[in-house]
């Protein structure tokens, strides 16, 4: 592992895979096919894009002009704020993989994660300049802000669908069906997690109260 960090090829490969993300977002069908089938993507690049997304999300919170984003700082928890991307992402990857693997999906969990992260690229790509531009416009000129902001999300959303279609080798209708299915699987997982946590906490509370009772009696 450490030895590979010293090799020059590691870095050239990393740069090539990262650059390939730009090809992916402009030529999604072709790009996401090559991403896995031609091994032109890497997890390192995917992680980089994910980190960029998280950074741009925080930068947006901090540096967007108050004209477009009024932040109630008392109510912000930075970790929860980051979790609002990471948690759905984890659920999506697991849910999508678990579902598609039962129905002839060719993608592995690793590939689902990589492709989804690659599809996030439009978000930092548009949001970071938008954050800067928001500081040099007035409210009346700001109509484009919400349009571009929505466009970045729409673009990323379409890319995720295209990515899933290519890595699982599905038809378009099947992809859309399984996207909805994956969202449903996410809901089911959230439900089970909540159930699990409330059961565990009740179980713990039960043993704590027994312990207290014993201590009182002694």
């Amino acid at each position, binding site marked *: 592992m450490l030895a590979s960090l010293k090799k020059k090829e590691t870095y050239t490969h990393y740069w090539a895979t990262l650059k390939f993300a730009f090809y992916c977002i402009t030529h999604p069908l072709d790009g996401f096919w090559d991403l896995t089938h031609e091994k032109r993507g890497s997890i390192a690049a995917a992680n980089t894009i994910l980190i960029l997304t998280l950074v741009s999300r925080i930068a947006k919170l901090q540096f967007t002009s108050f004209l477009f984003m*009024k932040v109630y700082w008392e109510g912000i928890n930075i970790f929860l704020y980051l979790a609002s991307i990471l948690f759905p992402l984890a659920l999506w990857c697991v849910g999508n993989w678990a579902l598609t693997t039962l129905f002839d999906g060719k993608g592995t969990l690793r590939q689902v994660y990589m492709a989804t992260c690659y599809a996030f690229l439009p978000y930092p790509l548009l949001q970071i300049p938008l954050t800067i531009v928001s500081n040099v416009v007035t409210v*009346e000129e700001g109509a484009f802000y919400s349009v571009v902001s929505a466009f970045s999300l729409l673009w990323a959303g379409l890319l995720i669908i295209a990515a899933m279609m290519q890595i699982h080798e599905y038809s378009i209708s099947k992809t859309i069906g399984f996207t909805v299915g994956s969202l449903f699987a996410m809901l089911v997982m959230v439900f089970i997690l909540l159930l699990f946590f409330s059961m565990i906490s009740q179980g713990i509370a039960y043993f704590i109260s027994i312990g207290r009772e014993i201590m009182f009696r002694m």
Partner: protein
Amino acid sequence: MKRLKRISAFVLSALILATSYMTAEAEEGYTYNYDYWGDVQYSPDAYDVAKVFTAGDMGLETGLKSPQGLSVYEDMIYICDSGNNRILEVKRTNDTTLEVQRIITEFKGNVEVNTFAMPTDIAVTDDGYMFICDQSNKRILKLDMDLNYVMEFTKPDDPNFDQSFDFLPNKLAVDSAGRVYCVAVNVNKGTIKFEPDGVFSGFVGATPVTYDWTDYIWKRLSTKAQRAQLESFVPTEYDNLYMDHEGFIYAVTSNVSAADVDSGAANPVRRLNLMGNDILVRNGEWFIIGDLYWGEAGGYKGTSLMTDITAFENDVYVALDRNRGRLFAYDDQGRMLYAFGGNGNMDGYFKSPVAIDHMNHDLLVLDAVDSSITLFTPTTFGSLIFQAIEQFQDGEYYESGESWKEVMKLNGNYDLAYIGIGRSLLRQEKYKEAMEYFELKYDDDNYSRAFKQYRKEWVEENILWIFIVVFAVLCVPLMIGKIKKIKHEIDTADIFQQ
């Protein structure tokens, strides 16, 4: 010695208790406001109780009995002592003294009934007439100042007016031309308007009917009989009226549902023009509804129920809530200045407030159950706010900014002070500083106004640099490309190959 110690310990503990009580009091203040986020921000008091006047304080033998109406004309206060069928003319001789001038129980003139029965409201006009809602006698009386009968306004003989009900005038407002606008019991079509000659000329200020597509679908599906019942009519029962110095009528209503008030669909406070359209400016962050949140604490449920309103000459208006006994002051843009008051027995709290009026910057509130008048005078904080608003209206922008700075010193949580300073700086063309104040309190419109000017100035100052940067960005890559091409041609040229 032991005893002395004990006493000193007692005094000390009492002091500690007292101070802790005082700090607790400071947290749950008497006066408050809402900030940009809608959080309650307690503030220094804007008004102090100068005195609470009961009948005894004014030198009356019989106490007030369920008084309903209060009106101020210059330094005279007119009180409708409804339960005793009389009207009191009271003069304010100095800050904390009221002297009864006349106890009016009857008037001169050739009419059947020369006395009042349950007078509920009175208005005094500049041309020297009194208009009195003589409710149980079913008329509005017009008397001159020497109590001579002039004329009366009675039940309109008009098909628009529901003839099956008695005409029971409750509240009234009179404009400079002598037109009478009246709120009557059982009338829910707006205010009843009388011409100066006593002729009924229609209803003014009914809530406009709005349609949405669900109504349309229901109408399509319902039978003719059902449709008749769905008559498109929004009942409007005003509680009280106030004629302001510009001749517009401030009207309040408490017949609004909590859901409508919360969503902004219902407006409990309105400012009507001659056509009856609501022209109240609503530029504030919040609806003009009094309290933004209502629980069921202390047994008081629901929204603020506005029962009366008064407007100063600087267009600040104060609405009176009979539900929780609070007063809400708003500026001409519809932003809340402060709210204060409450239900209770202490001075500055009410049992059943029914009417409010102002004398210069002082406020008078009439309490029907307590049978008293509370006189509020502005504190330093309150006066400074008025001063800042008035200076801005008079075009003294710099002075206004200085006054707002004084306000800010007294209350650093006062959003309007920041915006006021910003607006003052904006008028002085100090755009950069103005932007800072607007940004602190999230005033995007004013910020944009300042920023537009600031940006313009910045571009004008730096136009040379902007050109240089644009030139560099556009031309340098082109030139680099060109040089590389030439170099490549030289490197690959045949004549150098040998």
